[in-house]
């Protein structure tokens, strides 16, 4: 029912459904309508134009009423199209179900045959069949049905395969049911909706194809006339009486178009991705909708983020992924942002250079200042010039973040040529030298490799080289080691640490692992449910966490050689950010929760170099 409503809400689909219904009703009622006999010839009235008296659509070369012929022809075409669809669906689905259900050799042999049939251009096979059976509407119907069998067989086989190993089928097998019974009682009811939908979307095709065969004179034979043969007859008078061919063609077009509109509506309604808008094309930069811009703060920070807010607007819901985050990074400093998945740390990182996909992402407040300039106020082109040049990113999984179809050397060269006018040759050489600097052995030959030909660790080194290549002021590393093995992870971290010290780079390091923070970061900011809950120098925070959440996160890190210790995972899940509680977001999972926690917003209270968002901080504040 929901699906039906979704289809009808789609105006075009509803229009298609309406036209089809109207056409179907009129052609069903043809015998009852007050129209002339479609085969009644009247030579005196031949080739009358449309809208002439007594013949709304005019007459053909034998003086037959075109409106009447159109209605009767449509009736025949619809009937033939639907009959062909049903035949193809029944036989094709039966073949598909058998192949999908029994699998193995049965499947192999059947699908081989189906593939062979599909190696033919569709219409050609129909022609061959008509050639053998002889022209005639019934034979055209068989031919069109036959050439569509492979299509059904293949689709339905796919669906059956996905069902054939579900629990209820296994249960039926265990209960001792035999194959045919399982097919009828378990498989068929589940496949039927797909069959019906596939059939309804192919009826348009079938009508078109049978009409085509009739048009060629291979389908319906006079005096019997479907839309195709009407068009074929009209064609002979194309110049003297164009209406005789325009009218039936228009009807075929209207029917096929309606079926396609309806089919698109069905497909959209069934594809959940379209419903959520996830198939939207992300804009070049994140949409920014701020009511006011915070004043610039004094200080020597290279990157200064003030109360950044990023929302995801999905349908009527707003997910506050980042709910007012502030932090700064000084030149040469490494700030770690730590939090569970869903805490908003990655969205924070991506917001800095407008890289959050929009839709659905919208930056709704705050400022991001790079050396005093607000990146959120920049135009798309200005933003493009700082991306990679002043602020560069290292992403999590380099297999998906590197382009699969370009050599890594080309991807590096492109990054150079985006910002500097250098020759291809120079860019390539520079790329190779960068690969050497990130300690990739045989850099010159590795530059010619595609991403999938490299190991995970090597790929991430390429990712690092890509970030370094234009000598940015700050690098944002978004969980760069999460997808790697532990040993490789250590190497990559060591490399990153060396590089940043050599080049006096500022580094914003996003992670969920306090162990990594301890190894790499000067300061740390802990995020929870889109907010910073604690921040301070890494050593201090580690030694003496103020926020209960921070302490629990630190407890999650296993200590090497620390003997056996119970790893304390944090019970519960982070809250959904479209429905945040009034007070502290961590309260429901906190073991020290009191009424004060849930009463009202808790502020981030600074104390020296540190700050905490908690009504009853732990440790020694």
């Amino acid at each position, binding site marked *: 029912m929901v699906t039906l409503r979704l289809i009808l809400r789609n105006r075009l689909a509803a229009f298609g459904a309406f036209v089809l219904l109207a056409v179907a009703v009129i052609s069903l009622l043809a015998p009852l309508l007050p129209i002339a006999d479609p085969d009644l010839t009247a030579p005196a009235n031949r080739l009358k134009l449309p809208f002439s008296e007594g013949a709304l659509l005019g007459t053909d070369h034998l003086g037959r009423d075109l409106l009447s012929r159109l209605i009767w022809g449509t009736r025949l075409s619809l009937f033939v199209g639907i009959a062909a669809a049903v035949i193809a669906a029944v036989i094709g689905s039966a073949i598909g179900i058998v192949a999908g259900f029994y699998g193995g050799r049965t499947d192999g042999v059947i699908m081989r045959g189906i593939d062979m049939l599909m190696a033919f251009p569709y219409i050609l096979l129909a022609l061959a069949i008509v050639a053998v059976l002889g022209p005639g509407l019934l034979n055209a119907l068989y031919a069109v049905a036959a050439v569509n069998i492979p299509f059904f067989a293949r689709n339905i086989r796919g669906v059956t395969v996905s069902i054939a190993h579900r629990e209820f089928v296994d249960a039926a097998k265990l209960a001792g049911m035999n194959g045919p019974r399982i097919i009828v009682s378990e498989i068929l009811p589940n496949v039927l909706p797909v069959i019906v939908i596939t059939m309804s979307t192919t009826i348009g095709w079938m009508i078109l194809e049978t009409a*085509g065969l009739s048009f060629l004179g291979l389908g319906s034979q006079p005096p019997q006339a479907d839309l195709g043969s009407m068009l074929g007859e009209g064609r002979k008078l194309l110049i003297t009486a164009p209406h005789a061919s325009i009218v039936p063609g228009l009807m075929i077009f209207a029917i096929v178009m309606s079926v396609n509109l309806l089919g698109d509506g069905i497909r959209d309604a069934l594809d959940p991705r379209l419903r959520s808008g996830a198939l939207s094309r992300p804009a070049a930069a994140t949409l920014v909708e701020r009511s006011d811009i915070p004043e610039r703060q004094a200080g020597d920070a290279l990157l200064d983020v003030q109360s950044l807010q990023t929302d995801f607007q999905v349908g009527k819901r707003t997910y506050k992924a980042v709910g007012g985050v502030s932090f700064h990074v000084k030149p040469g400093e490494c700030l770690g942002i730590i939090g569970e998945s869903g805490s908003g740390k990655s969205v924070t990182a991506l917001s800095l250079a407008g890289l959050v996909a929009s839709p659905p992402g919208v930056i709704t407040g705050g400022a991001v200042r790079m050396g005093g300039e607000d990146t959120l106020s920049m135009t798309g082109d200005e933003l493009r010039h700082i991306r990679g040049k002043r602020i560069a990113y290292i992403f999590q999984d380099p297999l998906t973040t590197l382009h699969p*179809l370009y050599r890594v050397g080309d991807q590096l060269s492109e990054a150079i040529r985006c910002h500097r006018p250098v020759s291809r040759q120079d860019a390539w050489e520079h790329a190779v030298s960068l690969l050497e600097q990130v300690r990739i052995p045989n850099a010159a030959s590795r530059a010619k490799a595609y991403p999938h030909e490299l190991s995970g660790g090597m790929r991430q080194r390429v990712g690092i080289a890509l970030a370094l290549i234009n000598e940015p002021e700050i690098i944002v590393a978004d969980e760069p080691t999460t997808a790697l093995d532990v040993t490789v992870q250590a190497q990559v971290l060591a490399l990153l640490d060396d590089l940043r010290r050599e080049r006096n780079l500022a580094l914003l390091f996003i992670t969920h692992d306090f162990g990594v923070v301890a190894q790499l970061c000067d300061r740390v900011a802990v995020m929870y449910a889109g907010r910073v809950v604690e921040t301070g120098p890494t050593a201090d925070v580690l030694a003496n966490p103020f926020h209960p959440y921070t302490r629990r996160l630190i407890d999650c890190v296993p200590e090497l050689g620390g003997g056996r210790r119970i790893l304390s995972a944090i019970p519960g899940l982070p809250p959904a950010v479209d429905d945040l509680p009034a007070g502290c977001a961590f309260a429901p999972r906190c073991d020290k929760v009191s009424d004060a926690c849930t009463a009202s917003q808790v502020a981030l209270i600074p104390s020296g170099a540190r700050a905490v968002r908690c009504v009853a901080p732990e440790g020694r504040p």
Partner: protein
Amino acid sequence: MYAYALKRLLAVVPVLCGLTVIVFAIMALIPGDPATAILGSYATPENVEKLNRQLGTDKPLVQQYLIWLGNLLQGDLGRSYSLNRPVLDEVLERFSATLILAGAALVLCTIWGLLIGIWTAARQYGWTDKILTFAVLIGISVPSFWLGLLLILLFSVKLRWLPASGMFAIYGGGDLADLLAHLVLPALTLSIVATGVIARLTRSAMLEVLRLDFIRTARAKGVSETGVLYRHAFKAALVTIIPVIGVQAGFVLGGAVYIETVFQWPGVGRMLVQAISTRDLLLVQGGVIVVAASYVLFNLLADLAQSWLDPRVET
């Protein structure tokens, strides 16, 4: 790359074999006496008997097939009784005309399909997208044989800009310009549906790719929006589009049957329709085999193009 090409080339052999089996099987389905069916009901009994002996219909089916296949491999597709010349000669002559028409249509639909697909994806939900998407829907819904008639009415009858039929003018034609003038309308008509299909697929493939992580990487590098669209997204989308272009080659070759009839283009399609009306089954058989085989080769080309584009295919 070369290993893959060879592997793919060898895989074509069983497909071509299967194709001959299917064509042979369809012809073996002819109800009644095949010789009578081929020669028509007015054939003299002596001729029927002679042809039956030639066809070897008294032998088992497998043996018949092998003999038939042997002849096929030697280029012997039999003799067309209605034209009284070898089937192969006639088919090849006609096929060159079809190849010109289908080739032109394929080039048109690929270029326009890709461009429209990219434009609509780049301007998703904008006005260009809405108008073009609707135009594309019209394109895939319009019966090509009717569209051909409308174009003739408009451009040949009313405006008198372009010739309505044939491949060359009867008097004084014969050069390239003449051919092109005759080619415009049929090639355009034949390409419309395939343009729509390719445009739709390109749009959805582009939208699919534009959400992937490596696009974000490209943006993070500072690649311009044009670069993101064409160098990064389009190249990746092509991997899914190319096989569909291969499939469209089949629809274009098949659709040529209608278009050649409408525009009286002297190709295989029109020959097939005429051969069916005259019940010249050997000619039908020859035409079907040659066109189907060329479709298999088109798909092979598409596969090779894809492997050239996507280094991951080989592994």
